[in-house]
Protein backbone atom coordinates (compact mmCIF):
# COMPACT_ATOMS: atom_id res chain seq x y z
CA UNK A 1 0.00 0.00 0.00
CA UNK A 2 2.67 2.49 0.96
CA UNK A 3 4.75 1.69 -2.15
CA UNK A 4 1.64 2.14 -4.25
CA UNK A 5 0.98 5.43 -2.47
CA UNK A 6 4.47 6.68 -3.28
CA UNK A 7 4.21 5.58 -6.92
CA UNK A 8 0.79 7.18 -7.36
CA UNK A 9 1.94 10.36 -5.64
CA UNK A 10 4.83 10.54 -8.12
CA UNK A 11 2.40 9.92 -10.98
CA UNK A 12 0.18 12.70 -9.66
CA UNK A 13 3.19 14.99 -9.39
CA UNK A 14 4.18 14.22 -12.98
CA UNK A 15 0.64 14.87 -14.23
CA UNK A 16 0.40 18.07 -12.20
CA UNK A 17 3.73 19.43 -13.47
CA UNK A 18 2.74 18.74 -17.06
CA UNK A 19 -0.55 20.57 -16.44
CA UNK A 20 1.43 23.43 -14.95
CA UNK A 21 3.44 23.88 -18.16
CA UNK A 22 0.20 24.23 -20.13
CA UNK A 23 -1.59 26.32 -17.49
CA UNK A 24 1.29 28.79 -17.01
CA UNK A 25 0.96 30.13 -20.54
CA UNK A 26 -2.82 30.10 -20.38
CA UNK A 27 -2.97 32.07 -17.13
CA UNK A 28 -0.47 34.68 -18.37
CA UNK A 29 -2.22 35.16 -21.70
CA UNK A 30 -5.53 35.48 -19.87
CA UNK A 31 -4.11 37.65 -17.10
CA UNK A 32 -2.02 40.00 -19.23
CA UNK A 33 -4.09 40.30 -22.42
CA UNK A 34 -7.52 39.49 -20.93
CA UNK A 35 -7.74 36.98 -23.78
CA UNK A 36 -9.51 33.61 -23.51
CA UNK A 37 -7.38 31.37 -25.68
CA UNK A 38 -9.13 28.05 -26.28
CA UNK A 39 -6.43 27.29 -28.86
CA UNK A 40 -3.90 26.79 -26.07
CA UNK A 41 -4.72 23.07 -25.95
CA UNK A 42 -3.93 22.55 -29.62
CA UNK A 43 -0.55 24.17 -29.03
CA UNK A 44 0.16 21.35 -26.58
CA UNK A 45 -0.89 18.91 -29.31
CA UNK A 46 1.30 20.70 -31.86
CA UNK A 47 4.29 20.32 -29.52
CA UNK A 48 3.73 16.57 -29.44
CA UNK A 49 3.36 16.35 -33.24
CA UNK A 50 6.42 18.51 -33.88
CA UNK A 51 8.33 16.25 -31.52
CA UNK A 52 7.11 13.16 -33.40
CA UNK A 53 8.12 14.79 -36.68
CA UNK A 54 11.60 15.96 -35.67
CA UNK A 55 12.44 12.94 -33.53
CA UNK A 56 11.52 10.80 -36.54
CA UNK A 57 13.61 12.90 -38.95
CA UNK A 58 16.73 13.15 -36.79
CA UNK A 59 16.36 9.77 -35.10
CA UNK A 60 17.23 11.41 -31.79
CA UNK A 61 15.03 12.46 -28.89
CA UNK A 62 17.32 15.30 -27.81
CA UNK A 63 17.78 16.78 -31.28
CA UNK A 64 14.04 16.41 -31.90
CA UNK A 65 13.27 18.37 -28.75
CA UNK A 66 15.82 21.02 -29.71
CA UNK A 67 14.05 21.53 -33.07
CA UNK A 68 10.48 21.11 -31.76
CA UNK A 69 10.77 23.93 -29.21
CA UNK A 70 11.60 26.77 -31.63
CA UNK A 71 9.03 25.37 -34.06
CA UNK A 72 6.37 25.48 -31.32
CA UNK A 73 7.45 29.06 -30.53
CA UNK A 74 7.14 29.96 -34.21
CA UNK A 75 3.63 28.46 -34.37
CA UNK A 76 2.61 30.49 -31.32
CA UNK A 77 4.00 33.73 -32.78
CA UNK A 78 2.33 33.02 -36.13
CA UNK A 79 -1.09 32.47 -34.52
CA UNK A 80 -0.62 35.62 -32.47
CA UNK A 81 0.21 37.69 -35.55
CA UNK A 82 -2.54 36.23 -37.73
CA UNK A 83 -5.47 36.03 -35.31
CA UNK A 84 -4.97 36.72 -31.60
CA UNK A 85 -3.67 40.27 -32.14
CA UNK A 86 -6.98 41.26 -33.71
CA UNK A 87 -8.99 39.86 -30.79
CA UNK A 88 -7.49 41.68 -27.80
CA UNK A 89 -10.11 44.02 -26.39
CA UNK A 90 -12.95 42.15 -28.06
CA UNK A 91 -15.78 40.48 -26.16
CA UNK A 92 -14.69 37.26 -24.42
CA UNK A 93 -17.25 35.25 -26.37
CA UNK A 94 -15.92 36.51 -29.71
CA UNK A 95 -12.53 35.22 -28.58
CA UNK A 96 -14.12 31.90 -27.66
CA UNK A 97 -15.75 31.57 -31.10
CA UNK A 98 -12.59 32.45 -33.04
CA UNK A 99 -10.24 30.26 -31.03
CA UNK A 100 -12.76 27.41 -31.21
CA UNK A 101 -12.43 27.77 -35.00
CA UNK A 102 -8.65 27.47 -34.65
CA UNK A 103 -9.06 24.26 -32.63
CA UNK A 104 -11.23 22.72 -35.38
CA UNK A 105 -8.75 23.78 -38.05
CA UNK A 106 -5.60 22.53 -36.33
CA UNK A 107 -7.11 19.25 -35.05
CA UNK A 108 -8.16 18.50 -38.63
CA UNK A 109 -4.91 19.91 -40.01
CA UNK A 110 -2.72 17.42 -38.15
CA UNK A 111 -5.08 14.66 -39.27
CA UNK A 112 -4.46 15.62 -42.90
CA UNK A 113 -0.72 16.09 -42.42
CA UNK A 114 0.08 13.11 -40.20
CA UNK A 115 -2.95 10.81 -40.57
CA UNK A 116 -5.69 10.02 -38.08
CA UNK A 117 -3.87 7.08 -36.49
CA UNK A 118 -1.99 7.80 -33.26
CA UNK A 119 1.76 8.26 -33.61
CA UNK A 120 4.28 7.08 -31.09
CA UNK A 121 7.59 8.68 -30.27
CA UNK A 122 10.29 6.11 -29.39
CA UNK A 123 11.73 6.42 -25.92
CA UNK A 124 15.49 7.10 -26.02
CA UNK A 125 17.63 4.42 -24.38
CA UNK A 126 18.95 6.74 -21.68
CA UNK A 127 15.40 7.38 -20.46
CA UNK A 128 14.25 3.75 -20.60
CA UNK A 129 14.26 1.37 -17.69
CA UNK A 130 13.47 1.94 -14.07
CA UNK A 131 15.10 3.72 -11.20
CA UNK A 132 15.24 2.08 -7.79
CA UNK A 133 13.93 4.61 -5.27
CA UNK A 134 13.91 2.21 -2.33
CA UNK A 135 13.87 -1.54 -1.77
CA UNK A 136 11.13 -3.04 -3.86
CA UNK A 137 10.19 0.37 -5.28
CA UNK A 138 11.02 0.88 -8.94
CA UNK A 139 9.90 3.95 -10.85
CA UNK A 140 10.29 4.50 -14.61
CA UNK A 141 13.14 6.86 -15.49
CA UNK A 142 11.15 8.64 -18.20
CA UNK A 143 8.51 9.75 -15.72
CA UNK A 144 11.21 10.94 -13.31
CA UNK A 145 12.70 12.89 -16.22
CA UNK A 146 9.34 14.56 -16.86
CA UNK A 147 9.09 15.48 -13.17
CA UNK A 148 12.62 16.90 -13.26
CA UNK A 149 11.95 18.84 -16.47
CA UNK A 150 8.69 20.19 -15.04
CA UNK A 151 10.31 21.31 -11.79
CA UNK A 152 13.26 22.81 -13.71
CA UNK A 153 10.96 24.75 -16.03
CA UNK A 154 8.85 25.93 -13.09
CA UNK A 155 12.01 27.23 -11.40
CA UNK A 156 13.19 28.92 -14.58
CA UNK A 157 9.78 30.49 -15.07
CA UNK A 158 9.77 31.70 -11.47
CA UNK A 159 13.17 33.36 -11.99
CA UNK A 160 12.03 34.99 -15.24
CA UNK A 161 8.72 36.23 -13.79
CA UNK A 162 10.00 37.35 -10.40
CA UNK A 163 13.58 38.43 -11.09
CA UNK A 164 13.83 39.93 -14.57
CA UNK A 165 12.68 43.16 -16.14
CA UNK A 166 10.55 41.25 -18.64
CA UNK A 167 8.91 39.34 -15.80
CA UNK A 168 8.22 42.57 -13.98
CA UNK A 169 6.39 43.89 -17.04
CA UNK A 170 4.41 40.64 -17.30
CA UNK A 171 3.36 40.89 -13.64
CA UNK A 172 2.47 44.54 -14.09
CA UNK A 173 0.51 43.64 -17.20
CA UNK A 174 -1.45 40.98 -15.34
CA UNK A 175 -2.42 43.58 -12.76
CA UNK A 176 -3.19 46.53 -15.02
CA UNK A 177 -2.30 46.33 -18.72
CA UNK A 178 -3.60 49.78 -19.75
CA UNK A 179 -1.41 51.39 -17.08
CA UNK A 180 1.67 49.54 -18.35
CA UNK A 181 0.91 50.81 -21.81
CA UNK A 182 0.43 54.36 -20.53
CA UNK A 183 3.88 54.17 -18.91
CA UNK A 184 5.40 53.83 -22.36
CA UNK A 185 5.98 50.08 -22.59
CA UNK A 186 5.55 48.53 -26.04
CA UNK A 187 2.54 46.45 -25.02
CA UNK A 188 2.11 44.94 -28.46
CA UNK A 189 5.58 43.42 -28.22
CA UNK A 190 4.95 42.27 -24.64
CA UNK A 191 1.71 40.56 -25.70
CA UNK A 192 3.47 38.88 -28.63
CA UNK A 193 6.22 37.51 -26.40
CA UNK A 194 3.80 36.27 -23.73
CA UNK A 195 1.65 34.51 -26.34
CA UNK A 196 4.71 33.04 -28.10
CA UNK A 197 6.43 31.72 -25.00
CA UNK A 198 3.12 30.53 -23.53
CA UNK A 199 2.64 28.47 -26.68
CA UNK A 200 6.21 27.17 -26.41
CA UNK A 201 5.65 26.03 -22.81
CA UNK A 202 2.49 24.17 -23.84
CA UNK A 203 4.40 22.68 -26.77
CA UNK A 204 7.21 21.64 -24.42
CA UNK A 205 4.68 19.81 -22.24
CA UNK A 206 3.31 18.05 -25.31
CA UNK A 207 6.82 17.11 -26.49
CA UNK A 208 7.82 15.75 -23.08
CA UNK A 209 4.79 13.47 -22.76
CA UNK A 210 4.89 12.34 -26.39
CA UNK A 211 6.89 9.16 -25.59
CA UNK A 212 4.49 8.02 -22.84
CA UNK A 213 1.15 9.02 -24.41
CA UNK A 214 -0.10 8.43 -27.92
CA UNK A 215 0.17 11.46 -30.16
CA UNK A 216 -3.23 11.95 -31.79
CA UNK A 217 -5.59 14.66 -33.06
CA UNK A 218 -7.70 16.16 -30.28
CA UNK A 219 -5.23 15.16 -27.54
CA UNK A 220 -5.12 18.79 -26.38
CA UNK A 221 -8.87 19.24 -25.82
CA UNK A 222 -9.08 17.47 -22.46
CA UNK A 223 -5.84 19.08 -21.32
CA UNK A 224 -7.23 22.51 -22.19
CA UNK A 225 -10.22 22.06 -19.89
CA UNK A 226 -7.99 20.80 -17.08
CA UNK A 227 -5.69 23.78 -17.58
CA UNK A 228 -8.69 26.10 -17.23
CA UNK A 229 -9.65 24.30 -14.02
CA UNK A 230 -6.07 24.82 -12.80
CA UNK A 231 -5.98 28.54 -13.52
CA UNK A 232 -9.32 29.36 -11.94
CA UNK A 233 -8.36 27.37 -8.84
CA UNK A 234 -5.01 29.16 -8.70
CA UNK A 235 -6.29 32.61 -9.58
CA UNK A 236 -6.08 34.09 -13.06
CA UNK A 237 -2.81 35.78 -13.99
CA UNK A 238 -0.82 34.17 -11.20
CA UNK A 239 2.01 31.77 -12.09
CA UNK A 240 2.34 30.74 -8.44
CA UNK A 241 -1.40 30.03 -8.35
CA UNK A 242 -1.10 27.96 -11.53
CA UNK A 243 1.71 25.93 -9.93
CA UNK A 244 -0.26 25.18 -6.77
CA UNK A 245 -3.48 24.63 -8.72
CA UNK A 246 -1.76 22.22 -11.12
CA UNK A 247 -0.34 20.14 -8.27
CA UNK A 248 -3.72 20.09 -6.51
CA UNK A 249 -5.47 18.93 -9.68
CA UNK A 250 -2.77 16.42 -10.65
CA UNK A 251 -2.57 14.83 -7.20
CA UNK A 252 -6.32 14.92 -6.48
CA UNK A 253 -7.15 13.31 -9.81
CA UNK A 254 -4.48 10.60 -9.67
CA UNK A 255 -4.88 9.71 -6.00
CA UNK A 256 -8.68 9.92 -6.18
CA UNK A 257 -8.74 7.41 -9.03
CA UNK A 258 -6.32 5.00 -7.33
CA UNK A 259 -7.54 5.10 -3.74
CA UNK A 260 -11.01 6.68 -3.82
CA UNK A 261 -12.90 3.41 -4.21
CA UNK A 262 -10.93 1.71 -1.43
CA UNK A 263 -11.50 4.62 0.93
CA UNK A 264 -15.21 4.59 0.17
CA UNK A 265 -15.42 0.86 0.88
CA UNK A 266 -14.82 1.58 4.54
CA UNK A 267 -17.71 4.03 4.61
CA UNK A 268 -20.24 2.57 2.19
CA UNK A 269 -19.50 -1.13 1.90
CA UNK A 270 -17.92 -2.87 -1.10
CA UNK A 271 -20.74 -2.97 -3.63
CA UNK A 272 -21.86 0.63 -3.23
CA UNK A 273 -18.24 1.83 -3.29
CA UNK A 274 -17.43 0.10 -6.60
CA UNK A 275 -20.48 1.77 -8.12
CA UNK A 276 -19.94 5.26 -6.75
CA UNK A 277 -16.15 5.31 -6.49
CA UNK A 278 -15.09 5.73 -10.12
CA UNK A 279 -17.73 8.39 -10.83
CA UNK A 280 -16.80 10.31 -7.69
CA UNK A 281 -13.09 10.07 -8.55
CA UNK A 282 -13.72 11.58 -11.99
CA UNK A 283 -15.76 14.35 -10.39
CA UNK A 284 -13.27 15.10 -7.65
CA UNK A 285 -11.38 17.92 -9.36
CA UNK A 286 -14.64 19.59 -10.38
CA UNK A 287 -15.92 19.35 -6.80
CA UNK A 288 -12.65 20.93 -5.63
CA UNK A 289 -12.98 23.68 -8.22
CA UNK A 290 -16.62 24.41 -7.34
CA UNK A 291 -15.70 24.58 -3.65
CA UNK A 292 -12.75 26.91 -4.28
CA UNK A 293 -14.87 29.20 -6.47
CA UNK A 294 -17.68 29.18 -3.92
CA UNK A 295 -15.47 30.34 -1.07
CA UNK A 296 -12.91 32.33 -3.05
CA UNK A 297 -14.39 33.37 -6.41
CA UNK A 298 -11.07 34.95 -7.47
CA UNK A 299 -9.11 31.73 -6.86
CA UNK A 300 -6.52 30.87 -4.25
CA UNK A 301 -3.76 33.27 -5.32
CA UNK A 302 -5.26 36.05 -7.45
CA UNK A 303 -2.74 38.35 -9.13
CA UNK A 304 -2.31 41.38 -6.91
CA UNK A 305 -4.79 44.15 -7.60
CA UNK A 306 -7.14 41.77 -9.37
CA UNK A 307 -9.14 40.07 -6.63
Amino acid at each position, binding site marked *: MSTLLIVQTLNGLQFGLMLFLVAAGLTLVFGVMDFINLAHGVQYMLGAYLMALFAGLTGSFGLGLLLALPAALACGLLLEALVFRRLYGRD*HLDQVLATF*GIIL*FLNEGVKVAFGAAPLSVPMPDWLSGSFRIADGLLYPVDRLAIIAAGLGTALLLWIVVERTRFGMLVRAGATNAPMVSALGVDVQRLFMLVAGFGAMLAGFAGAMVSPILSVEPGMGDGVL*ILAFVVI*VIGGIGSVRGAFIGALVVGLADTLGRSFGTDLLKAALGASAATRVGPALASMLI*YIVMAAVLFFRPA*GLFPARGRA
Partner: protein
Amino acid sequence: MLVTLVILFAVLAALPWLGALGVKGYVLSFATRMMIFAIAAVSLDFILGFGGLVSFGHAAYMGIGAYAAGILVAEGQEDALLGLAVALLVAAGFAAATGAVAMRTKGVAFIMITLAFGQMAYFVANALSEYGGSDGLTLWTRSTVFGQKLLKSETVFYYVVLGCLVACTALVLALTGSRFGRALRASRENPARVAALGYDVDRIRLAAYVVSAMLCAVAGFLLANQSSFVSPGVMSWQRSGELIVMVVLGGMGTVAGAIVGAFAFLLLEELLSLVTVHWKLVFGPFLVLVVLLGRGGLMGFLRGGGRG
Protein backbone atom coordinates in the same frame (compact mmCIF):
# COMPACT_ATOMS: atom_id res chain seq x y z
CA MET B 1 -36.32 40.69 -36.33
CA LEU B 2 -39.90 39.50 -35.98
CA VAL B 3 -40.01 39.44 -39.80
CA THR B 4 -36.97 37.13 -39.90
CA LEU B 5 -38.65 34.80 -37.42
CA VAL B 6 -41.98 34.71 -39.26
CA ILE B 7 -40.28 33.97 -42.59
CA LEU B 8 -38.15 31.29 -40.94
CA PHE B 9 -41.11 29.55 -39.33
CA ALA B 10 -43.20 29.79 -42.51
CA VAL B 11 -40.43 28.10 -44.52
CA LEU B 12 -40.09 25.41 -41.87
CA ALA B 13 -43.85 24.80 -41.81
CA ALA B 14 -43.91 24.43 -45.60
CA LEU B 15 -40.94 22.06 -45.77
CA PRO B 16 -42.83 18.74 -45.46
CA TRP B 17 -45.21 19.87 -48.27
CA LEU B 18 -42.28 20.00 -50.63
CA GLY B 19 -42.33 16.19 -50.66
CA ALA B 20 -43.49 16.27 -54.25
CA LEU B 21 -40.48 18.39 -55.15
CA GLY B 22 -38.14 15.70 -53.93
CA VAL B 23 -37.68 16.48 -50.26
CA LYS B 24 -36.66 13.12 -48.85
CA GLY B 25 -37.11 11.70 -45.36
CA TYR B 26 -33.44 12.44 -44.76
CA VAL B 27 -34.01 16.17 -45.21
CA LEU B 28 -37.01 16.08 -42.90
CA SER B 29 -35.17 14.30 -40.11
CA PHE B 30 -32.16 16.60 -40.52
CA ALA B 31 -34.44 19.64 -40.31
CA THR B 32 -36.00 18.16 -37.16
CA ARG B 33 -32.53 17.83 -35.65
CA MET B 34 -31.71 21.45 -36.55
CA MET B 35 -34.89 22.67 -34.85
CA ILE B 36 -34.13 20.63 -31.70
CA PHE B 37 -30.71 22.27 -31.41
CA ALA B 38 -32.31 25.63 -32.16
CA ILE B 39 -34.53 25.15 -29.07
CA ALA B 40 -31.42 24.46 -26.99
CA ALA B 41 -29.65 27.50 -28.47
CA VAL B 42 -32.65 29.76 -27.80
CA SER B 43 -32.74 28.53 -24.20
CA LEU B 44 -29.04 29.30 -23.74
CA ASP B 45 -29.36 32.68 -25.48
CA PHE B 46 -32.01 33.67 -22.94
CA ILE B 47 -29.46 33.70 -20.12
CA LEU B 48 -26.29 34.26 -22.17
CA GLY B 49 -27.42 36.94 -24.58
CA PHE B 50 -30.03 38.69 -22.46
CA GLY B 51 -28.71 37.96 -18.97
CA GLY B 52 -24.96 37.96 -19.62
CA LEU B 53 -24.66 34.61 -17.82
CA VAL B 54 -22.31 32.35 -19.81
CA SER B 55 -23.30 28.81 -18.88
CA PHE B 56 -20.65 26.31 -19.97
CA GLY B 57 -22.67 23.40 -18.60
CA HIS B 58 -25.90 23.75 -20.53
CA ALA B 59 -25.56 20.37 -22.22
CA ALA B 60 -26.29 18.86 -18.80
CA TYR B 61 -29.89 20.06 -19.12
CA MET B 62 -30.15 18.60 -22.60
CA GLY B 63 -28.86 15.39 -21.07
CA ILE B 64 -31.39 15.51 -18.23
CA GLY B 65 -34.22 15.80 -20.76
CA ALA B 66 -32.77 13.03 -22.90
CA TYR B 67 -32.24 10.69 -19.95
CA ALA B 68 -35.74 11.40 -18.64
CA ALA B 69 -37.07 10.12 -21.97
CA GLY B 70 -34.66 7.17 -22.10
CA ILE B 71 -35.03 5.95 -18.52
CA LEU B 72 -38.82 6.24 -18.50
CA VAL B 73 -39.13 4.28 -21.76
CA ALA B 74 -36.71 1.66 -20.39
CA GLU B 75 -38.96 1.38 -17.31
CA GLY B 76 -42.04 0.93 -19.47
CA GLN B 77 -43.46 4.42 -18.95
CA GLU B 78 -43.85 5.63 -22.51
CA ASP B 79 -46.17 8.57 -22.05
CA ALA B 80 -44.68 11.73 -23.53
CA LEU B 81 -46.46 14.11 -21.18
CA LEU B 82 -45.22 12.21 -18.14
CA GLY B 83 -41.70 12.13 -19.60
CA LEU B 84 -41.76 15.83 -20.36
CA ALA B 85 -43.05 16.64 -16.86
CA VAL B 86 -40.25 14.60 -15.28
CA ALA B 87 -37.67 16.21 -17.57
CA LEU B 88 -38.87 19.70 -16.66
CA LEU B 89 -39.02 19.00 -12.93
CA VAL B 90 -35.58 17.39 -12.70
CA ALA B 91 -34.01 20.12 -14.84
CA ALA B 92 -35.63 22.82 -12.71
CA GLY B 93 -34.44 21.16 -9.51
CA PHE B 94 -30.86 20.71 -10.71
CA ALA B 95 -30.78 24.26 -12.08
CA ALA B 96 -32.18 25.77 -8.88
CA ALA B 97 -29.67 23.93 -6.70
CA THR B 98 -26.56 24.50 -8.83
CA GLY B 99 -27.68 27.95 -9.96
CA ALA B 100 -28.00 29.16 -6.38
CA VAL B 101 -24.34 28.25 -5.84
CA ALA B 102 -23.20 29.58 -9.22
CA MET B 103 -24.86 32.99 -8.70
CA ARG B 104 -22.23 33.71 -6.05
CA THR B 105 -19.65 33.99 -8.81
CA LYS B 106 -19.43 36.14 -11.91
CA GLY B 107 -17.49 36.35 -15.16
CA VAL B 108 -15.01 33.58 -15.79
CA ALA B 109 -15.69 31.99 -12.40
CA PHE B 110 -19.35 31.59 -13.42
CA ILE B 111 -18.31 29.96 -16.71
CA MET B 112 -16.10 27.49 -14.86
CA ILE B 113 -18.48 26.69 -12.01
CA THR B 114 -21.26 25.87 -14.49
CA LEU B 115 -18.72 23.68 -16.31
CA ALA B 116 -18.01 21.93 -13.01
CA PHE B 117 -21.69 21.14 -12.43
CA GLY B 118 -22.08 20.03 -16.03
CA GLN B 119 -19.15 17.66 -15.68
CA MET B 120 -20.61 16.25 -12.45
CA ALA B 121 -23.87 15.46 -14.29
CA TYR B 122 -21.82 13.92 -17.11
CA PHE B 123 -19.98 11.55 -14.76
CA VAL B 124 -23.23 10.61 -13.01
CA ALA B 125 -24.66 9.62 -16.40
CA ASN B 126 -21.52 7.54 -17.02
CA ALA B 127 -22.12 5.73 -13.74
CA LEU B 128 -25.74 4.78 -14.52
CA SER B 129 -24.80 1.18 -15.29
CA GLU B 130 -28.44 -0.06 -15.32
CA TYR B 131 -29.10 2.43 -18.13
CA GLY B 132 -26.14 1.66 -20.34
CA GLY B 133 -23.43 3.55 -18.44
CA SER B 134 -20.94 5.07 -20.85
CA ASP B 135 -22.30 3.01 -23.77
CA GLY B 136 -25.63 4.78 -23.68
CA LEU B 137 -29.19 3.56 -23.86
CA THR B 138 -31.34 2.68 -26.87
CA LEU B 139 -35.01 3.70 -26.74
CA TRP B 140 -36.99 0.82 -28.17
CA THR B 141 -39.92 3.11 -28.99
CA ARG B 142 -40.79 6.77 -29.21
CA SER B 143 -42.88 8.27 -26.42
CA THR B 144 -46.62 7.93 -26.85
CA VAL B 145 -49.36 10.53 -26.39
CA PHE B 146 -52.33 9.17 -24.37
CA GLY B 147 -51.34 5.68 -25.42
CA GLN B 148 -51.32 6.58 -29.13
CA LYS B 149 -48.11 6.20 -31.13
CA LEU B 150 -48.61 9.64 -32.65
CA LEU B 151 -44.95 10.61 -32.69
CA LYS B 152 -44.00 7.56 -34.74
CA SER B 153 -44.68 9.40 -38.00
CA GLU B 154 -41.69 11.55 -39.00
CA THR B 155 -44.00 14.26 -40.32
CA VAL B 156 -46.04 14.46 -37.12
CA PHE B 157 -42.85 14.48 -35.04
CA TYR B 158 -41.47 17.23 -37.28
CA TYR B 159 -44.50 19.42 -36.62
CA VAL B 160 -44.38 18.68 -32.88
CA VAL B 161 -40.75 19.83 -32.79
CA LEU B 162 -41.60 22.91 -34.87
CA GLY B 163 -44.45 23.66 -32.45
CA CYS B 164 -42.04 23.39 -29.51
CA LEU B 165 -39.57 25.71 -31.25
CA VAL B 166 -42.26 28.31 -31.97
CA ALA B 167 -43.57 28.04 -28.39
CA CYS B 168 -40.07 28.38 -26.87
CA THR B 169 -39.29 31.36 -29.11
CA ALA B 170 -42.58 33.02 -28.21
CA LEU B 171 -41.99 32.39 -24.51
CA VAL B 172 -38.48 33.84 -24.60
CA LEU B 173 -39.66 36.86 -26.61
CA ALA B 174 -42.51 37.45 -24.16
CA LEU B 175 -40.22 37.06 -21.16
CA THR B 176 -37.53 39.39 -22.49
CA GLY B 177 -40.15 42.03 -23.20
CA SER B 178 -41.71 41.72 -19.76
CA ARG B 179 -40.78 43.64 -16.62
CA PHE B 180 -38.80 40.61 -15.46
CA GLY B 181 -36.94 40.42 -18.78
CA ARG B 182 -36.14 44.12 -18.76
CA ALA B 183 -34.68 43.81 -15.29
CA LEU B 184 -32.65 40.80 -16.47
CA ARG B 185 -31.31 42.68 -19.49
CA ALA B 186 -30.52 45.71 -17.37
CA SER B 187 -28.66 43.53 -14.88
CA ARG B 188 -26.36 42.42 -17.70
CA GLU B 189 -25.35 46.04 -18.25
CA ASN B 190 -25.24 47.31 -14.69
CA PRO B 191 -26.23 44.99 -11.84
CA ALA B 192 -25.48 47.58 -9.17
CA ARG B 193 -27.92 50.04 -10.65
CA VAL B 194 -30.64 47.40 -11.03
CA ALA B 195 -30.12 46.43 -7.38
CA ALA B 196 -30.35 50.08 -6.39
CA LEU B 197 -33.73 50.26 -8.13
CA GLY B 198 -34.97 47.67 -5.67
CA TYR B 199 -34.68 44.48 -7.71
CA ASP B 200 -33.12 41.34 -6.28
CA VAL B 201 -30.61 40.72 -9.07
CA ASP B 202 -29.59 37.24 -7.90
CA ARG B 203 -33.19 36.08 -7.75
CA ILE B 204 -33.96 37.43 -11.21
CA ARG B 205 -30.87 35.71 -12.61
CA LEU B 206 -31.66 32.45 -10.83
CA ALA B 207 -35.23 32.47 -12.13
CA ALA B 208 -33.94 33.05 -15.67
CA TYR B 209 -31.39 30.27 -15.23
CA VAL B 210 -34.10 27.81 -14.17
CA VAL B 211 -36.39 28.75 -17.06
CA SER B 212 -33.50 28.38 -19.50
CA ALA B 213 -32.61 24.96 -18.07
CA MET B 214 -36.20 23.75 -18.45
CA LEU B 215 -36.40 24.87 -22.09
CA CYS B 216 -33.10 23.11 -22.77
CA ALA B 217 -34.48 19.92 -21.19
CA VAL B 218 -37.34 20.02 -23.71
CA ALA B 219 -34.73 19.97 -26.50
CA GLY B 220 -33.02 17.00 -24.84
CA PHE B 221 -36.30 15.13 -24.50
CA LEU B 222 -37.03 15.63 -28.20
CA LEU B 223 -33.47 14.69 -29.21
CA ALA B 224 -33.66 11.34 -27.39
CA ASN B 225 -37.00 10.61 -29.05
CA GLN B 226 -35.69 11.53 -32.46
CA SER B 227 -32.48 9.52 -32.39
CA SER B 228 -33.94 6.72 -30.19
CA PHE B 229 -30.68 6.83 -28.26
CA VAL B 230 -29.13 8.62 -25.31
CA SER B 231 -25.56 8.48 -24.08
CA PRO B 232 -23.47 10.56 -21.69
CA GLY B 233 -22.04 12.20 -24.83
CA VAL B 234 -25.12 14.49 -24.90
CA MET B 235 -23.82 16.08 -21.69
CA SER B 236 -20.13 16.39 -22.58
CA TRP B 237 -18.46 19.77 -22.23
CA GLN B 238 -17.83 19.76 -25.97
CA ARG B 239 -21.61 19.82 -26.47
CA SER B 240 -21.94 22.74 -24.02
CA GLY B 241 -19.22 24.51 -25.97
CA GLU B 242 -21.02 23.89 -29.26
CA LEU B 243 -24.19 25.46 -27.86
CA ILE B 244 -22.22 28.59 -26.91
CA VAL B 245 -20.66 28.63 -30.37
CA MET B 246 -24.10 28.40 -32.01
CA VAL B 247 -25.41 31.35 -29.99
CA VAL B 248 -22.34 33.53 -30.58
CA LEU B 249 -22.18 32.55 -34.26
CA GLY B 250 -25.77 33.62 -34.81
CA GLY B 251 -25.58 36.75 -32.70
CA MET B 252 -26.05 36.96 -28.95
CA GLY B 253 -29.09 38.57 -27.44
CA THR B 254 -31.36 38.13 -30.45
CA VAL B 255 -33.72 35.16 -30.41
CA ALA B 256 -33.54 34.89 -34.19
CA GLY B 257 -29.75 34.88 -33.90
CA ALA B 258 -29.76 31.77 -31.74
CA ILE B 259 -31.94 29.93 -34.26
CA VAL B 260 -29.89 31.14 -37.23
CA GLY B 261 -26.69 30.17 -35.40
CA ALA B 262 -27.89 26.64 -34.65
CA PHE B 263 -29.12 26.18 -38.24
CA ALA B 264 -25.93 27.59 -39.75
CA PHE B 265 -23.72 25.44 -37.51
CA LEU B 266 -25.47 22.16 -38.32
CA LEU B 267 -26.14 23.00 -41.97
CA LEU B 268 -22.53 23.97 -42.68
CA GLU B 269 -21.32 20.87 -40.86
CA GLU B 270 -23.64 18.70 -42.98
CA LEU B 271 -23.02 20.41 -46.33
CA LEU B 272 -19.26 20.71 -45.94
CA SER B 273 -18.97 17.08 -44.87
CA LEU B 274 -20.67 16.11 -48.14
CA VAL B 275 -17.86 17.88 -50.01
CA THR B 276 -14.89 16.68 -47.96
CA VAL B 277 -14.26 14.57 -44.88
CA HIS B 278 -11.90 17.33 -43.79
CA TRP B 279 -14.75 19.86 -43.56
CA LYS B 280 -13.35 21.30 -40.34
CA LEU B 281 -10.47 22.76 -42.36
CA VAL B 282 -13.05 25.07 -43.94
CA PHE B 283 -15.43 25.47 -40.99
CA GLY B 284 -12.71 26.50 -38.52
CA PRO B 285 -11.42 29.45 -40.55
CA PHE B 286 -15.04 30.39 -41.34
CA LEU B 287 -15.69 30.89 -37.61
CA VAL B 288 -12.51 32.96 -37.29
CA LEU B 289 -13.57 35.13 -40.22
CA VAL B 290 -17.08 35.67 -38.81
CA VAL B 291 -15.44 37.12 -35.70
CA LEU B 292 -12.73 39.13 -37.48
CA LEU B 293 -14.90 40.62 -40.21
CA GLY B 294 -18.05 41.42 -38.28
CA ARG B 295 -19.57 42.05 -34.92
CA GLY B 296 -22.72 40.50 -33.57
CA GLY B 297 -22.38 37.21 -35.45
CA LEU B 298 -24.39 36.28 -38.54
CA MET B 299 -27.33 38.47 -37.48
CA GLY B 300 -24.88 41.38 -37.47
CA PHE B 301 -24.24 40.72 -41.18
CA LEU B 302 -27.97 40.32 -41.90
CA ARG B 303 -28.72 43.61 -40.21
CA GLY B 304 -26.30 45.19 -42.64
CA GLY B 305 -22.68 46.04 -42.99
CA GLY B 306 -21.16 43.62 -40.51
CA ARG B 307 -19.06 46.09 -38.61
CA GLY B 308 -21.48 47.59 -36.14
